[in-house]
């Protein structure tokens, strides 16, 4: 891959990448345009591909007619705490699963994979009853605990893959030099794996930020609602208020997008580039 790209390769690359970009971004563009139209002009033909006059009425309505700011804070809190704790816990379990061949290792992997196969609806009823008994219904702590649990299996499996791409010799050398296992893990492996860890964290965060069904089930009162629950509430049985919906969609996507843009740098970095040469 040291050689230069051919002209053909370059042209096909530009065409492919531009096409992907247009297709990917268009729905975002369209929802932004819709949200900036005055409520009445959303339903008028022919369609305008840019609002005739920009109106923030949909956004204003969101914060005055509903408590959208509150929902955003709730979502941010729940997703941040849950994703941080889940990533940390998964890091430990992934390390064990990647590095040690103990009896029952296969069983643990299967147990984790199994959680991904089971439709959550089986568990919803008993979970609700259990949370009621623990006094954790309609509480942010309760939702965070459940979110941590649903993040761990996938996060562990993914981090394990990243661990396996890092040579054993790295932490063994550190341990011969007198590091404890924990120090070796956090001083030597974590820095090398930072892109993988960042990817896992963001993944957890976005999952929690977007989770709908559990939050609908567990959070009853209006002041505890997260964004997805509120969005689901915008659909009445026969009618969808597309103005509010698109404004809310824009506000939901932007923070998730921001955290991603910030951290995509980590994901792009080589995972083991430094380690192999060291």
């Amino acid at each position, binding site marked *: *891959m040291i050689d230069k790209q051919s002209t053909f390769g370059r042209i096909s690359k530009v065409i492919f990448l531009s096409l992907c970009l247009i297709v990917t971004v268009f729905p975002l563009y369209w929802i932004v345009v819709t949200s900036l139209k005055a409520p009445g002009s959303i339903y008028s033909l022919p369609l305008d591909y840019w609002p005739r006059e920009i109106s923030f009425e949909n956004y204003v309505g969101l914060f005055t007619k509903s408590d959208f700011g509150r929902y955003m804070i709730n979502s941010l809190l729940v997703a941040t705490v849950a994703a941080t704790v889940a990533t940390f816990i998964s890091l430990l379990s992934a390390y064990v699963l990647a590095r040690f061949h103990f009896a029952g290792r296969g069983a643990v992997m299967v147990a984790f994979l199994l959680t*991904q196969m*089971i*439709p959550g609806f089986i568990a919803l009823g008993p979970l609700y009853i259990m949370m009621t008994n623990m006094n954790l219904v309609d509480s942010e702590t309760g939702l965070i605990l459940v979110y941590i*649990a649903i993040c761990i299996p996938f996060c562990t499996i993914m981090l394990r893959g990243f661990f396996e791409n890092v*040579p054993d010799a790295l932490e063994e050398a550190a341990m011969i030099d007198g590091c404890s296992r924990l120090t070796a893990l956090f001083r030597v492996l974590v820095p090398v794996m930072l*892109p993988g860890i960042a990817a896992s964290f963001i993944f957890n965060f976005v999952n929690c930020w977007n989770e709908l069904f559990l939050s609908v089930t567990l959070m009853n009162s209006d002041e505890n609602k997260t964004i997805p629950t509120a969005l689901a509430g915008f659909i009445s049985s026969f009618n969808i208020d597309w103005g509010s919906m698109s404004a809310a969609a824009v506000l939901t996507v932007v923070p998730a997008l921001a955290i991603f843009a910030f951290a995509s740098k980590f*994901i*792009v970095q080589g995972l083991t*580039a430094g380690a192999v040469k060291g």
Partner: protein
Amino acid sequence: MAINSERMVVRGPNTVTAPPQPQAIHRRKKRFNTRTALTLLAFMAPAAIFVGIFTYYPMIAGSQMAFRNWNLNDLSDTSWVGWGNFIKLFESPEFGGIVRNTVVWVVGSLVPQVVIGFALALFLKRRFRFRSGYQAFIFFPWAVSGFLIGMLFRWMFNAEFGVVNDLLMKAGFIESPIPWLAEPGFAMTAVIIANIWYGVTFFAIMILAALQSVSEDMYEAAALDGAGKARTLFSITLPAISVTLGLTILLRVIWIFNFPDIIWAMTGGGPADQTHIITTYMIKITQEGDYGQASALGLIVVFTLMLFAVFYLMAMRPRKANR
């Protein structure tokens, strides 16, 4: 360290994907004393506790409902009914169509996702101007919830004011608006398009991360040995990322199978059950209150996916060992 890095260069892909060398296992066994075992136990404990309490307990408690008459509308009789709920499902006229829809949904979504995602990751691997900016945009679908994507596409596929019809008519592909979400044949296409749009990013992100963990040394060694582009792709890139790629595909199949959000938001399973997959159908039954049947349906999903995962992992393993 020095010895190891030499091994990385010489052996290349082997060190990344091959099972541990005998010597390494031996070394590890010797160090596996009581103290290490306790440390490992402490490392595993938090994950096990969380998943046990908040996932496994409710799941097992829910599973037993599959064998009981458990209907929220009438809880006076919750007796055990054996396989009754399963038989009722298999005999219901909708079941065959729902299974077929599920297969169409999984295969139709997965294949384009893998292909486009892989191409995207390959193109993104090499540095170019605006690459990081490009990535921030291209990875955008990943940040959106399934429910919201469903709503976005429901609006774009709207028969009357939808932008898809408008664009297709402007381009001259169609004469009159298509009622996408109301017409059986089109509704499935529409929900799959939404799902592809969503899933490509995930593959691109995972494959890109794996690609970047492949040592540049290997590519340099391959180039020195005169390997062409195709050869490099098949002999170095693919083997080196096969573990990540294989696991990503497995997880993705499971997720697409278990992913009712987009369909639920776009069509709710309609028109005439034409876009109902097993999991959306399960939501429908749950909302009707028949937890027994919903739970039975859930167990069918688990069983199917487990079978799939076992065969898939078995198919993956020998490929790794041979190399």
